């Protein structure tokens, strides 16, 4: 027995059959989608299966009542105080990773000395984050130190029942443009004239057809 792993190559039909649910929902990469489209042209069994799944999915996602969240949120909010967020960020984590990753190779005393140093670095890092106004501008956790260019000012969630013309009216009235979305949560990212941001924010919050408005800048949020 050589121990070599023999890779089992699935027949094309089986691979297509297994991927049909994601083909149906449009959640495949371009290459996979094209391969399945090609297979569907020559496979009546997969075409029938796709149609069967389409009916099944339509029934599955139908009749979805949206529950109210406020009562549940009200129960959770008092628990937030006793469960403070873990205070760490990616810069501190990098330092910790470096030190902790090397700890196994060091004498115990050196590790202790380093742990004290890390504690000081963490404390200084936290102080810098508090004192430096630029620390309140946002960047992705995976990015380099330079912040990413801003791609919008607000996240807005419209009431799902409002017609398109209402959404258009709100956008025109607030001089806003949709620059991204829909987000996974159903919201849209809007860009608005920066000078009017607080006023626009207040106006959008007053709209009955807007379920939620949240600025992306911490300063405006305050």
């Amino acid at each position: 027995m050589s121990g070599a792993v023999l890779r089992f190559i699935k027949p094309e039909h089986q691979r297509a059959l297994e991927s049909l649910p994601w083909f149906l929902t449009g959640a495949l990469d371009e290459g996979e989608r094209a391969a399945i489209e090609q297979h569907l042209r020559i496979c009546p069994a997969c075409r029938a299966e796709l149609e069967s799944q389409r009916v099944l999915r339509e029934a599955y996602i139908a009749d979805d009542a949206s529950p109210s969240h406020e009562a549940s949120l009200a129960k959770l909010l008092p628990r937030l105080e006793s469960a403070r967020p873990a205070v760490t960020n990616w810069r501190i984590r990098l330092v910790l990773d470096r030190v902790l990753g090397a700890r196994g190779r060091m004498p115990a005393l050196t590790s202790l000395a380093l742990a004290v140093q890390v504690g000081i670095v963490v404390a200084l890092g936290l102080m810098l984050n508090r004192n430096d106004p630029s620390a309140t501008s946002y960047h992705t956790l995976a990015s380099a130190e330079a912040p990413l260019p801003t791609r919008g000012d607000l996240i807005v969630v419209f009431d799902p029942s409002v017609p398109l013309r209402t959404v258009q009216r709100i956008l025109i009235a607030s001089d806003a443009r949709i620059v991204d979305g829909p987000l996974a949560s159903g919201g849209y990212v809007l860009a608005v004239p920066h000078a009017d941001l607080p006023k626009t924010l207040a106006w959008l919050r007053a709209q009955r057809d807007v379920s939620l408005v949240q600025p992306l800048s911490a300063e405006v949020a305050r």
Partner: protein
Amino acid sequence: MLYGQKTHPTAKDRRTSNANLAEQSLLERIGSGDRAAFETLYRCYFPRLTRFLQRFLRRPDKVEEVLNDAMLVVWRQAARFNGHSKVSTWIFAIAYRRALKSISRFEDPMEFDEEHLASLYPLPEEVFLQRELGAALDRAIARISPVHRAVVELTYYHGCRYQEIAQIMDCPVETVKTRMFHARRQLRLLLSDQKEDLP
């Protein structure tokens, strides 16, 4: 062309990636203790998580408890989000793990009690064909295992890619595909049984 092989990102991929940045910004604010940002994220995710947990747990009395426990983890761990997955994938993975823990504590296997399910999800007197199929499907879904239900829900309703589901459920992508394949086969059999039982 091998199935599952990663190709160049599509326009949809890039759009999703850009949209994800906005939710990452919210997470960063939550990580620094911003309650308003947390409430925004909570309201955004509440409908989707409720739906997911309703289908996965099959215990309406547990949904709110598990959802709030999961969001409390999000509140506490937001600063530790490492950006290796989408924010939605990260949050759903937390909810999935909390739900699994909750299921392991269930004393009674309510999910397989058909009479109780019928009382929770009663059929209306007059239903259209689609509603009938929906109700039959609901009963069938209740009969398959929780992990199979989770894959069906994340695929059909939440539109997750199988790679994302693998991250959420912490399993290989081939396992996700196999579970979905078996779930579909079981659902078909269960629906077929119900069809035979019709008067």
